[in-house]
């Protein structure tokens, strides 16, 4: 890492600290600023979201082309929340409506809504803590000249880092499969977005109907019912489901059967997905970078060139790795818990 010219024994001014370590700390300082800006962006954007439930319903565009339509919709939804939708044959119980309403009225998606599972985050935290521990042990070993032990600890670190990334990959995959991606999340259903949502859910319900064997019988029945309601109404000339109503129904369905591949309505979901992928993505890139360095060290060990003279290298790599760990220590609670 540190290809310093001036490693000869020579008088010079400055701090009693090798150039490499000084530069590594400087690099970490720039990284602190980088992640501060990133996490700061997340914090302010998240806390800046003002919009409770009626905005999902009523939209918040201010040109107000349809004041009347809006207040009508608002009234309907208020009814829905207060009494349940009577002509829905009770598919949405009052309790459920209350629950969904309370979730929707959060100014930010709850982890639950965006399929984040707290214990997986905690597991990943633990994995990174373990890897921090093993890398510090590797450094300890190499300062005592124990190359073999060092190799073992570095291997463990590499493996733990890989585990972290694999877990992350599974998490990302679940986001992909539920379309919780920036630009894909339906977080408001006014205007053309509502029509898009209706079409999309209809297609998804049809898909589930065609492959009913992939889901539980109960879920298939619920989906079928919703699909029939959606299509029957059009034919029978009844008032069709508004996108907002459909959104609530789909969310309720997902509440019941989390494995269904339906597109939920997530207020502020786009913003959430943007922040989530930017922060965890950059963190994962840093993890990947660390793994590359560990792999290089292992290659050196493999070819027998690793020795006590590389204590500095391992210390610097360790510093970087601990920093990556610290970033995750903050990301975990910010994304999964609070």
């Amino acid at each position, binding site marked *: 890492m540190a290809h310093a010219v001036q490693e000869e024994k020579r008088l010079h001014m400055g701090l009693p600290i090798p150039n490499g370590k000084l530069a590594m700390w400087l690099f970490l300082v720039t990284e602190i600023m980088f992640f501060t800006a990133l996490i700061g962006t997340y914090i302010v954007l998240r806390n800046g979201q003002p919009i409770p439930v009626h905005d999902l319903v009523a939209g918040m565009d201010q040109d107000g082309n349809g004041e009347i339509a809006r207040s009508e919709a608002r009234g309907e939804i208020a009814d829905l929340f207060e009494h349940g939708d009577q002509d829905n044959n009770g598919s949405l119980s009052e309790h459920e409506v209350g629950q969904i309403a309370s979730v929707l009225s959060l100014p930010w998606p709850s982890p639950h809504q965006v399929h984040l599972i707290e214990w997986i985050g905690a597991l990943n935290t633990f994995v990174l803590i373990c890897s921090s521990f093993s890398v510090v042990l590797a450094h300890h070993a190499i*300062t005592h000249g124990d190359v073999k032990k060092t190799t073992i600890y570095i291997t463990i670190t590499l493996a733990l880092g890989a585990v972290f990334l694999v877990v992350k990959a599974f998490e990302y995959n679940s986001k992909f499969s539920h379309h919780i991606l920036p630009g894909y999340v339906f977080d408001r259903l006014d205007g053309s977005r509502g029509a898009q949502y209706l079409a999309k859910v209809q297609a998804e319900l049809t898909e589930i109907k065609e492959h009913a064997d992939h889901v539980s019988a109960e879920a298939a029945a619920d989906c079928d019912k919703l699909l029939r309601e959606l299509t029957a109404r059009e034919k029978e000339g009844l008032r069709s489901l508004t996108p907002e109503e459909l959104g609530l129904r789909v969310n309720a369905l997902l509440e019941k059967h989390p494995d269904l591949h339906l597109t939920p309505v997530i207020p502020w979901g786009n913003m959430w997905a943007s922040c989530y992928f930017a922060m965890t993505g950059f963190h994962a890139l840093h993890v990947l970078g660390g793994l590359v360095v560990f792999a290089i060290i292992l290659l050196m060990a493999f070819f027998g060139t690793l020795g006590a003279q590389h204590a500095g290298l391992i210390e610097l790599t360790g510093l970087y790795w601990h920093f990556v760990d610290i970033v995750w220590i903050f990301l975990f609670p910010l994304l999964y818990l609070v």
Partner: protein
Amino acid sequence: MSEEKREESQEETKPQEEEKAEAEAHTEHGDEKPVEDKEAHASSSHAEGHGPAVGVYTAIFAALSVFTLLSFAFNGAMQSGMISAMTSFALIMGVAVIKACLVAIVFMHLMFDWKRVYFMIIPAIVLGLLILIVLLPDIVLGWKSVAAHELTPP
């Protein structure tokens, strides 16, 4: 090639002289002492030689694990309504700060290197907080006040 050699040979013959010159140069302006690289190595390997034993590392590791569980537990308590969201937020972030400090102080050897790198870390933390504080009125509070109007029922 020749220059290199010359430099080296002069280096070899000069050190004593230089050191003396050094010392003199510094009696006039003793605000900073020159450092020999040997010393630099010695002092940084100081961390390694007499650094924390494996036991200390293990203890910190255990503490980190416990703290992770703790923040998990606070979250659970919040969800079951035992503590308010604000309290749990404060507790969880407090735990995160403690964890980060433990990692930085022990694993990153700040307990030895702090006096050599503090001048970089403190400004970074101050500036980081500064961004947040300045953004708050503008983006968080600013929005909320506008939103309050928008949310007033007609």
